[in-house]
Structure formats: C-alpha cells, structure tokens
C-alpha cells in the first residue's frame, strides 16, 4: 500500500513538472511564428523528463549521459525539421549552434522557427526538465524541482519582453500545477519504501504539513496581491527587452540618408537598378526618413534582424519579385508595409517599416516581398486632423531659412484645413519652382535656402526631388503638419526594369485616422514656374489692408487647438490614477498587515511544529523532537550548540540561557543509541522537560527576539 501511494505521488509530481516545463518553454513560443516551436519545446520537456524518470533509480552519471545524448539527438532533429533544406544538415547544425543566441535575440517578432532560433528554447527546456526531474524525482525535493522550470518561465518572459500579450491563463495554470506538485510532494529519500535508509528523525505529518502549506500559501498570496500591482506598473512603464542589449546592423552613409542618391540618379536616368515584377502600379520604397537635424534627413529607429515573416496585418498579398541589377547599398526596395520576405536575409525598421539586408545588395540577388500596403484615399484626409502623436514628425531644428517661414505663413493664412494646407503647399512648390536634374546635391538649410531664395539666374529656385521633398516636409512642419520624406521608385504593375529615372523622393503627411498621405510637390512638365515673390507679396498686401483674426479666420475649425486634444480624452496620468479602483493607501495598509502578520505566522508555525515534534510519532521520534525543541529554543535565545557536542555537553551549553534540560540527554542517548528502549513515559517526560525548558528560555530572551523569531 505504501509503495503504491508513493508511486502515485511521484507520478503526480512527474506529470505536473513535465507540463510545467512544457508551459515554461511555450512562454517564449508566443513570439514565434506558427506552432512549430510550441511542439518542439513540449516534446523536449516530455522527452527529457521521461529519460530522467525512467532512470531515476540508476546512477546519476548514467541518467546525465543518456540525457545528454538525447538532447543532442533532439536538437539535431529540431534543426532538420526547421531547416529549409538549402544546405547540408551538418552545416545547418554548426551554423545554428554558433549563431543561436545572437540570432534569437535579434530576430524580429514574430520569430520565424529556424535552426538558429529554435535551438536556445529547446536546449533550455530540455535542461530545465532534466534538472527538475533529478531534483524532484531522484532526490525528492519537489520545491527545488520547481525552480528550473520557473527560471525557464522567467527567462521566457524576459525574452518575450513587451512583445506579446500577458499570458495570465498560462501563468495561473502553471501556479496550479506547482501547487499540486507540492501538495502531492514525494517523501524524502529516507522515507521511500524502496530505500533501506534508516531514519532517526521524525518525518513531517501530512496534516501539519498541509496546515503549514496553507498558511504559507496565504502569506504568499497576500504578498503577491500587495506587490504585484507595483511590479506590474514598473514593468509596464519600463519593460525590459533583451533585444535592446544587441547591437543592431550598422548602416553606411548612403543607407542612413538615401536622399543623397537622388542627384546621382537624376544625372544617370538610364541606369538600370533592378528588375521588378509586381501585382500592380505601386511605389517601392527604399527608405523612409523622419528625422531632420538641419543637415540631413535620416530614418529614426533601429533595424532589427527579422525572419522571413514580418509583422504585418495580412498575408502579404501584394507580391513583388525583385532581381537586383545595379542598385547598391543595404536598403531593400519594397512596397509599403512589407509582411514577408523570402530568399533574402533582412532586418526591418520597426518605426518606418523599411527593409535592410545586412550583407548589402549585390547584382543577381533575387527575392520575393509580400506586402499589405495601406490603401489611402486622399478624400478621407480632407476633413482629418493632423496626427501629432509622434513628436519627431513635427520637430524642427533651429535656423530655418526665412523663405521657409514665409511660405509656411502664406500656407497657414491661405488655407484653413490641414489637408488643404498640405495640398496647397504641394501646389505652391510645383507652381513656383522648377525641376533641374543638374542641380547640385544637398538638403541642409543653406542648400534649401539657396533652392528657395536664390535668383533663377544664379541657379536657384530649381532642383531635384531631393530639394522638393525636403523643402516640402520642413515647411509642412512649420505649418503644423507632421511630415516625412520617402525615397523610392514609381514602378508600374507587371514585369519591368526599374531605372534611375524612376527614383525620386516624395513627402508624406500624417492624418489622424487616415495614415500617411503622399503629396507630390514636383512641377508639372512644360509649365514655367511663377516666381514665388509675386505670390508672397500679394499676401503681404492683403495682410496690410485687412488684418486677419489670429484664429485663422472665419468659422474654420482650428485643427491644432490644444483644447481639442483634451476633448479626445488623451492619456492623463492624474485622471488615470483617480480612476484606480483601489487607492494607494489601501495597498500600503495591506503591505503593513502582511509584514505585521509575519511574527504571528512564525509563532503559529513554531507552535505547530512543536506540537508535531512532541505529540506525533514513536516515543523515540518524540524524544528526538523534544531534543530539537530544546536546541531550537536555545538558538533563539542566542546560544548555538555545535554539532560536535554530545548530548550532555549540548544540554550544559543550552543551560547557559538560564533554563534546565536535565534528564533529557539521558533520554536522547537512549532513544538514539538503544533502539526500542524508550517508551511512552519516557516520551512524555522528554516533552515535559522540553516544554519547561522552552518556557524558561523564551522568558529569558528579549521581547523583540521573542516576537521576531
């Protein structure tokens, strides 16, 4: 009967820990694409635990050896399963082992299951399951056995970081499994029926253990309830992400600022850059530039290594097949909002969704890009307010040329709605400035000032799309419109060869609820530009005759009015705090209650333990329990008894606290070294001596010590 109960207990513990290891492994799988990794880590947990469980009665070295070779075989199998077959398996294995950690940390979420991204989770899961089995099954330490899967769980949470939704249900199931495993905890080795070890000390009783467990669990629950909101708030406000520790791919100058390529393309319009075969007319983007520092436009955000699947809203239904001819650099041309890239290793800019290949483009590179471009109808933007959520898109470095400010004032005064201003600005530039492929390169403030204000005879007032797009974006920002510059190509649907003549830059304006809308400030062919001074002078004359109200005139809505922002109910920390259901002071009181209850819990635990030691078990066990009580009481009173002391010496040492345990050493020696010679009367006598000693010793200690120990 005892053997059956023991086997049932370890079976329950084994099952719980196996599922816990599998759950811990699947925490990281939440950021992986598809169910492949979930299956792999679950299989690793089951296999590793099965190996340890079957060999639990064999020597540890044998279990370790079998587990090691099992892990090696399982890893190779995982690599073979996730490899694309392009390279021989040994090469795949070596590459996966060498690059597993950095690629796992730099992979874009959702991570594509590949040999170099599944190795770390599978290895850690196997290791955690092996350790858990050894600790819990072989050595009977269930609590210690819960530690490896818990560490794996924590590592999984850290790896996922803020990139997945909270897994509350999984966490609850995990905690329940741990509780079940602990409740059905296996006996210590000495109590196992398959062991002939002799046990002198008393084993914990189930009822006492249960009461202690319930009290401990209650304390833990209260502590979690008190501390979890604070921890959650901390994680929410500053989440840790291990990917921040990995250096992103480095960019060259032409990749940092592809706008500089425009003049070169303008001068060599026939240069064939790449061949494309796309589903319909579209603009293929090379770079999206959001930050301007007075000298250059640059893309904000970092590039992160990605798998073949990129975060997208769909399945990348807009397909583009690309073959590189002479297009250099690392930036990858793609239709907006790419969702999947195959046959080319890429990194993606999380902010702009631009693509980059770390090794650079080379002639002959062929790849497929699937995109889900957001179809924006300009009509939707007519009545929309500007999207000012990203401060970078409206940031202006100081020192803007006066010409820009004058045009911005003109646009603001002339047009009422944001869309009209954006379109009016595009019209203004296209009507007053000309295109010249021979224009000098540059889009810093002086170059743009020359473009805007220099006489036509001196080469001013004409430029390439570099100057048009850059100027438009900056004036738009002066007019309160969030803007950015995109460098790319207008590509017709179907197969075609994209030449440098198709390369251009264009500005985009962000509208709330609509997205980024492209505007075209380039002049129409065959139309002579009107000198901008004429239009701007007209505005000054009108302003002198009839001052306009500051609001912009008429009944037009002020789309930049801060009051409107408040009406929209944007995040307000004070309001949010006020809406909290449980006030802060309640948490403080709860924490104080938890801390204040600790002495009571300690006392209750000690009382239960004393009762168990003195009242439960055989007479010899009770005498040993009385001895443990005396030594424990002496320790609380500040007298430590060394392990080298025999019973008489220990009792003498314990007697220095002012209490006496006379008679107990004889009983202890009798119980320990003359088995079967102590009876109920001896056990009762030992209990009386111990209780008297504990009473006197506790009374002799300080009040604080009595409370806190």
């Amino acid at each position, binding site marked *: 009967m005892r053997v059956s109960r023991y086997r049932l207990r370890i079976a329950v513990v084994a099952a719980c820990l196996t599922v816990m290891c599998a759950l811990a492994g699947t925490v990281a799988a939440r950021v992986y694409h598809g169910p492949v990794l979930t299956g792999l880590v679950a299989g690793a947990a089951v296999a590793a635990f099965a190996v340890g469980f079957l060999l639990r009665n064999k020597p540890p070295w044998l279990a370790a050896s079998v587990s090691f070779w099992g892990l090696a075989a399982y890893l190779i199998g995982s690599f073979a399963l996730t490899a694309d077959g392009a390279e021989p398996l040994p090469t795949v294995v070596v590459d996966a082992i060498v690059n597993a950690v950095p690629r796992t940390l730099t992979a874009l979420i959702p991570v594509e299951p590949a040999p170099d991204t599944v190795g770390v989770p599978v290895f850690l899961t196997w290791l955690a399951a092996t350790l858990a089995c050894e600790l819990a099954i072989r050595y009977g330490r269930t609590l210690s056995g819960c530690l490896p899967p818990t560490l794996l769980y924590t590592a999984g949470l850290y790896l996922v970081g803020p990139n997945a939704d909270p897994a509350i249900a999984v966490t609850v199931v995990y905690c329940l499994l741990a509780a079940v495993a602990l409740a059905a905890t296996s006996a210590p080795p000495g109590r196992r029926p398959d062991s002939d070890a002799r046990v002198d*000390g008393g*084993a914990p009783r189930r009822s006492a253990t249960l009461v202690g467990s319930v009290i401990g669990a209650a304390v833990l629950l209260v502590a979690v309830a008190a501390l979890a909101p604070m921890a959650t708030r901390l994680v929410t406000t500053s989440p840790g992400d291990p990917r921040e520790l990995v250096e992103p791919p480095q960019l060259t100058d032409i990749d940092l600022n592809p706008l500089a390529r425009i003049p070169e393309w303008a001068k060599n319009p026939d240069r064939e850059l790449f061949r494309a075969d796309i589903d319909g007319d579209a603009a293929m983007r090379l770079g999206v530039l959001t930050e301007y520092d007075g000298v250059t436009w640059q893309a904000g955000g970092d590039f992160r290594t990605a798998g073949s699947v990129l975060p997208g809203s769909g399945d990348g239904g807009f397909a583009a097949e690309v073959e590189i001819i002479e297009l250099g650099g690392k930036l990858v041309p793609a239709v907006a909002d790419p969702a999947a890239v195959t046959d080319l290793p890429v990194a993606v800019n999380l902010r702009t969704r631009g693509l980059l290949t770390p090794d650079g483009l080379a002639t002959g590179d062929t790849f497929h890009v699937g995109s889900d471009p957001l179809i924006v109808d300009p009509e939707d933007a007519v009545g929309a307010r500007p999207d000012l959520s990203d401060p970078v898109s409206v940031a202006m470095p100081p020192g803007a040329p006066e010409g820009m400010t004058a045009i911005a004032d003109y646009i603001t005064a002339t047009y009422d709605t944001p869309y009209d201003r954006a379109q009016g600005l595009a019209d203004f530039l296209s009507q007053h400035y000309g295109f010249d492929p021979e224009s000098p390169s540059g889009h810093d403030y002086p170059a743009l000032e020359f473009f805007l204000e220099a006489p036509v005879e001196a080469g001013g007032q004409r430029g390439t799309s570099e100057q048009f797009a850059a100027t438009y974006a900056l004036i738009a920002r002066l007019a309160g419109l969030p803007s950015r510059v995109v460098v790319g190509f207008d590509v017709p649907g179907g197969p075609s060869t994209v030449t440098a003549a198709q390369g251009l830059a264009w500005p985009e304006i962000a509208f709330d609820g609509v997205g980024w809308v492209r505007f075209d400030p380039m002049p129409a062919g065959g139309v002579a530009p009107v000198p901008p001074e004429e239009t701007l002078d007209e505005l000054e004359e009108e302003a002198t005759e009839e001052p306009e109200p500051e609001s912009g005139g008429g009944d037009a809505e002020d789309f930049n009015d801060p009051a409107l922002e408040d009406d929209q109910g944007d995040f307000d920390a004070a309001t949010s705090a006020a809406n909290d259901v449980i006030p802060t002071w309640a948490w403080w009181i709860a924490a104080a209650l938890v801390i204040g209850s600790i002495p009571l819990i300690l006392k209750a635990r000690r009382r239960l333990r004393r009762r168990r030691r003195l009242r439960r078990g055989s007479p010899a*066990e009770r005498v040993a329990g009385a001895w443990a009580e005396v030594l424990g009481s002496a320790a609380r009173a500040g007298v430590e008894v060394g392990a080298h002391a*025999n019973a008489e010496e*220990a009792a003498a040492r314990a007697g220095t606290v002012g209490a006496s345990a006379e008679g107990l050493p004889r009983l202890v020696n*009798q119980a320990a*070294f003359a*088995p079967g010679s102590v009876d109920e009367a001896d056990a009762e006598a030992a209990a009386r001596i111990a209780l008297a000693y504990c009473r006197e010793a506790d009374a002799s200690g300080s009040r604080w010590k009595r409370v806190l120990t």
Partner: protein
Amino acid sequence: MQDSEQTHPLQAPRPVQQPVTLNPGQAEAFAATFERLAAAVDTVVLGKPDVVRLALTAMFAEGHILLEDVPGTGKTTLARAIASAVSGQWRRIQFTPDLLPSDVSGVTIFNQGSGGFEFHPGPVFANIVIADEINRASPKTQSALLEVMEEGRVTVDGHPHSVPSPFVVVATQNPVEMDGTYRLPEAQLDRFLVKLSVGYPVEAAEIEVLRGTHQRSPENIPAVVDTDTVKQMAEVAKYVYIADPLYAYLVQLANATRGHPQVAVGVSPRGLIALTRAASVYALSQGRTYIIPEDVKALAEPVFSHRIQLAPDAAMRGASGAGVVAEVFESVPVPLPASAA
C-alpha cells in the same frame, strides 16, 4: 532491548547466530561489582576516582595499563591496589637496565635429577603483572613483553607457555627523568589499551593521605573479586550494544586523527578496537547496556593520545596527542538525532 533468558547476572550470554544484547540486570550487576572494586581501590588511591575507574575499565576490557607520571604520585600504589583487590596471582617486576628478557619471561634449566630441561616461569606468569619503571629496561627486555601482552603466551626455546587468564600488565614510567631510560617503541605503546596520568591529588585528598599514611596500604585491601569474576565481566562487556551511527562516529574520529596536520601517524585500527572495547566496559560500569558518545569522549584521550605520533615540527612546537584528540572531537559531529523539522 529484548530480555534474555534467566542467567547469572555476570554470566555472558551464550554465543548464538542472532546478535545478542544484554538485559539491564546484567548491566546493573556489572556496575555494582565495578563500583565495589573501585571503592576498594579508592581507599588507598585517594582523590583519583576517575583514574581508578579508567584503570579498572582497561582491566575489564582485557587491556594493559600504562601509568605515566612524575615520581611519588601513586602509580605503583594504584597498580598494587588493583592487584590486591583482585584475588588472583600478581607479580611485580622492577625494571632496571641490566634486567634480561629471561628475567621476565622465564628460563629453561637442565634438571640433573630428571635428566631433562625444565621451564622455570618468570614473573610474567601471573594475572596482574606490575612492570615498575618499564622504560628503564633495555629495548630487548621491553620486547620480551610484546608477545605476552598481545597473545597471552610466552615462547621460550620454541615452546609456547600460556600465562594465566585474566592477564593484565600495569606498567609505570617516569616521563621527567630520562637519563638511563629507553623510550617505549610505538609498537610497545600500542599494546597498552590506555595511558593514564595519576597527577597530584587535590589539597583535601593530600591532607587525607598524610593523615593515614601508616594505616593505608595496598596490601590491606581485601580482595573484592576473583579472577573468574573478572573473566566473566570481561566476557559480558563484549555484548554491549553499539548503534550503527556510533561505529561511523568512531571511524570518523580515527580518520580525523590520521588527517590532522600535526599528526604523522594517526590512530591504528587496533587503537579503534581498543576504544570500542573500553567504551563497552565504561558503559556497563555506568549501568547501561549500550554505548553513547559520552563514553567515547571520556575514553578517547587515554586510549588515543599515546597512539598518535606527532609530526616533528608539531612536537617541536609543544603539541601533544591529547591536544590533537581534543581538536578532533571539535571537528567531528556527534550522531545525535537530527531535528525533526
């Protein structure tokens, strides 16, 4: 402890296949006899009850006793008192540099009357042999005791001659006056179960010694037990119960002496056996049928200290075997029951 059949209190249980344990009555009878013997010796050796009991413990453990102390502290008196309290045959040998081995063991002489050689036993043929100032004899003569102390027989001219049983050698030596002495070799020291130091008596005991100098003599002690009783008591002591953890404790103690940095040669297995035998007798003398760690600690120094050979540098720095034993006991945990946490 299961009660054995009704036997004489001091009669050893009959050896059987199953482990035999003693009943409390046997232990109490042993303790009573032991105490009467000790009390008899105490009437002469004043103020040294512990030394007396250790010496008697060694005797009942069938071991030999080495009394080492400065002259005049009662070594010979103790030896003679023990001999007198046991109504057996005892001899005293005053060891001198010119003492020959045959003076100890005996000699074979040609008998003209019978026309053959006859063995004339030496003083070693007695139940209790007092070897006074044993370190004054030459190593050759000291070695004459090796065989008889270990095996209880003497071989002369190729013929073995058994000594009577029980056989106990109570030797004395003076550690201070080293001129003309020969230090006992390690093999010889190992033959002694205990080495005891009598020491000076406390003031009250010394006054009592002066007060009764003329009335108190070892020869006046009445015999308390006979040799047969001593043999029976020694046999009983072999059945004292020793718990398994104590065996491990004893071995750990011995190992600790062997690994001690100040020790060149630690305690031998024979020393460990000697401690176990002595502890068994000590436990019975306390009325117990089982050994406890206190017994081991009480006997460890007299049993172990003379068996420990110190490293030369440690000896030069004044280390001692007793000090090493004390350190060893500080380092080995006592196998008391673990806390039932």
